């Protein structure tokens, strides 16, 4: 049981939980403080230097690193804060490949959010020297790509792979302005220990780590992953009659927002042309398409000939509870045998 902490942000009364940081508390109360390197799942590092606040009139301090304290008066803006933020965001933009229209993050870019908040002026940007950089894009992974030219070195991907995935496939390479995010030895992603889970892609605040084929779901349906026994909660993204994306369910205790490569990216089999769409009946060694009635009649009559010990059924660990229940009920009650099993042992 955590204690409640009362304090004010820009004069507004805030109630937060003990241990929460000021930035999270502000965001939870719809007070925006600019930030790029913060993610609620990760330990704060204070690298982007955008979320500065002043507490009780003191020096600027990063709100992501500052725990809430009873009775403090937090200011999210001041001339010093404004100057530090302004310079930081202007430098970021001068360093960034701003091909926003073609960018996968165009609709969900924290850099654009911060610059909109700060009201970045073109004439100020023109004074700055642009970074000349054209690093190769790593397209080695089939599901996502990494464009270091769009990377803001917030380190969210590095920390995600370390703190969430526990893998540490990513790190910082080189230093200063040459710093890039990369795998051990700066090899392509697929040649590293990367497990392609995409946790970093989900959390990238800009378009540096982005799905190769960004799809926009018109609606989402909450369900459970089809693969292993962990049973991760997911949302299927639907566009028209097709599943176009998978998003992890943060509320489900099984996975709490995490997914693996199969769960996140392995859904295209649903739309695969190999899908069976018609009952097939083998005639003279060849399958022929049939209507349901014909197939069901045939099965009913054949099964009727093999009741009792002559019948066996294999249920499925891929089917639902209800379906397995019906298969064993059918086997036991209709066919009169207990010879029902499934591949639990394989």
């Amino acid at each position, binding site marked *: 049981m955590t204690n409640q902490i009362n304090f004010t942000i820009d004069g507004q009364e805030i109630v937060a939980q003990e241990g929460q940081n000021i930035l999270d508390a502000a965001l939870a109360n719809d007070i925006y403080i600019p930030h790029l390197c913060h993610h609620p799942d990760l330990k704060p590092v204070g690298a982007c230097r955008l979320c500065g606040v002043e507490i009780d009139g003191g020096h600027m301090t990063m709100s992501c690193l500052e725990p809430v304290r009873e009775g403090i008066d937090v200011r999210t803006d001041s001339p010093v804060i404004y100057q530090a933020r302004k310079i930081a965001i202007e430098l970021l933009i001068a360093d960034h490949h701003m091909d926003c229209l073609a960018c996968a993050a165009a609709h969900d870019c924290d850099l654009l959010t911060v610059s909109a908040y700060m009201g970045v002026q073109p004439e100020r940007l023109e*004074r700055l*020297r642009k970074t000349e950089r054209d690093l190769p894009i790593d397209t080695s992974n089939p599901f996502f790509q990494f464009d270091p030219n769009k990377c803001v070195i917030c380190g969210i991907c590095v920390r995600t792979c370390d703190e969430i995935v526990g893998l540490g496939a990513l790190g910082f390479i080189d230093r200063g302005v040459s710093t890039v995010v990369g795998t051990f030895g700066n090899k392509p992603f697929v040649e590293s220990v990367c497990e392609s889970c995409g946790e970093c892609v989900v959390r990238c605040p800009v378009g540096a780590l982005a799905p190769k084929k960004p799809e926009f779901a018109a609606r989402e349906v909450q369900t459970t992953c089809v693969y292993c026994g962990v049973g991760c909660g997911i949302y299927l993204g639907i566009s028209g009659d097709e599943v176009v994306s998978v998003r992890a369910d943060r509320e489900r205790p099984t996975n709490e927002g995490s997914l693996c490569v199969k769960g996140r990216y392995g859904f295209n089999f649903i739309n695969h042309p190999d899908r069976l769409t018609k009952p097939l009946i083998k005639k003279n060694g060849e399958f022929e398409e049939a209507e349901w009635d014909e197939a069901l009649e045939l099965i009913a009559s054949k099964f009727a000939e093999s009741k009792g010990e002559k019948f066996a059924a294999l249920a499925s660990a891929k089917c639902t509870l209800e379906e397995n229940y019906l298969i064993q009920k059918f086997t036991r009650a209709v066919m009169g045998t207990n010879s029902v099993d499934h591949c639990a042992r394989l």
Partner: protein
Amino acid sequence: MEANDKTVLICRGTGCESAKSPAIQTELMSGLQGSDVEVKFTGCHGMCQQGPIVIVEPQGTFYANVKLKDVEPIVGSLKNGGGPVEKLFYKDPATKEGLSTYHDIPFYSRQKRLVLQNCGRIDPEDIDDYLAEGGYEGLKKAIFDMTPDAVVQAVLDSGLRGRGGGGFPTGRKWKFTQDAPSDTKYVLCNADEGDPGAFMDRSVLEGDPHAVLEGMAIAGFAIGAQKGYIYCRAEYPLAIKRLQIAIEQARERGYLGKGIMDGDFDFDIDIFHGAGAFVCGEETALITSIEGNRGMPRSRPPYPAVKGLYDKPTLLNNVKTYANVRLIINNGADWFASIGTEKSKGTAVFALTGKIANSGLVEVPMGITLREIIFDIGGGMLDPNKNFKAVQTGGPSGGCLPESFLDTPVDYDSLIEAGSMMGSGGMVVMDEDTCMVDVARYFLDFTEKESCGKCVPCRLGTKQMLDILEDIVEGRGKPGDIELLEDLAVGIKAGSLCGLGQTAPNPVLTTLRYFRDEYEAHINHHACPAKQCKELITYHILDTCVGCGLCRRNCSTNAIIGEQKELHYIDQSLCHKCGVCFEVCPPKVFSVEIRTGEVKLVES
């Protein structure tokens, strides 16, 4: 040692070693074999440009620039009881007079050597030499005659402040770490000396390693730590070697390890090799590096005193800070507090370098003026015909102070007030031939390369400032660039995560403050007043040229045209501005002129 026993001390600091002092030592030993003259080696004397240095005790005869061929006369004078070898005396740069001892040499006579007191006097690889000078008496006094609280109080009362540059009161740091509750605490020594040209810490480690170990052990006793690490950059192999020897000897003699001096205090020290990143001199980056991670700073608070190495309370001080500790314990806080100024106690060690006659390490009491250091100890300008222009203190985090600040007392607060800082102790003297914009560019080039890349203002801001400064010195400066530099500087100082970024704009800010006209000349008139920025200068041959052909023959690009005994001229399209023509033109002719501000620039 009896009064008539002679000892020859040969310096084997890194500088003298690279000038073959080990071979000289071998020669001395073989030459003096069988005599009653003992040959020993020592750490650095600080006056490295005069090395190798040989001292003959008890007279204290000081021989400078000793070569292998000089061994024979030295041996001869010692064996035959003749007088000293006068030609090896140090020559005063002003009077050209030969000075025979330390005390005669102004470079030394005006210093107050506390931290460096054993450097150049004892054999750093022999603990007995250290013990003979009162070594480990401070530790003994601390653990047997004092309580941890009393030790902390003594350091507090002494007024000692951090010698790494920041100047935080050392006693308060000790108190915080002592007060932090934990069974496990660490004592770290920051020996990641990285400022360009600075070698104070290295000299202490090479010349008097036990003083640092003793200081750390006293600190361990005071704060309740059992383990210490010295984070020493791997580029200091000699310092690491001597530290290792010192640690082993101290363990053997019971000054480190379990049950120190048969008491119940346990403390041991290991060396951690830094891999050469400047930012690892920042305390949180240093800690992160010891933990085995990429050396990047963490945001503070929490401070290391509360949550440091492996999240345990950690005391981190500079080499020289620890070297001062035993002096405070031995001589008392009052004695230490009597040296220096009201707020800056004790001495400061500087690496004096640049356009100065006597470069080297100097230790002075706090409060001495810049003028005394530069002109009395340093002997003034390297070229007496040139004027003093500025002095840079505090390394890449510091600033450049002009002539009007020469009477500023050297202490933490006065230097900060002037826009510079004490820093870890670099002091670069510049003469009139120095372009201050180029100096700023040089330091930004350093910080930009050494930025770890973690935070936005430092990573991108230092690069932006460097780009602008490069544009200015190369003639591409634009109106508004000065204001942009100032704008960036404020944002970077306010926004950066660690000290590296927070101080990186200082060289620009101080040069803008005191030498703004130079920036304006570069930008508005494409002129470099110091005539140093290649892109902004041209070489011309005046009509006083006698046609000797010296410049023509030396020009590597064949840009100089002219017949023998006839007036020469420079084809500007071929000139690479190397300046060789200027240098070779005979002084009595003096027909090559450097011009600036007249250059037609290609529009970029």
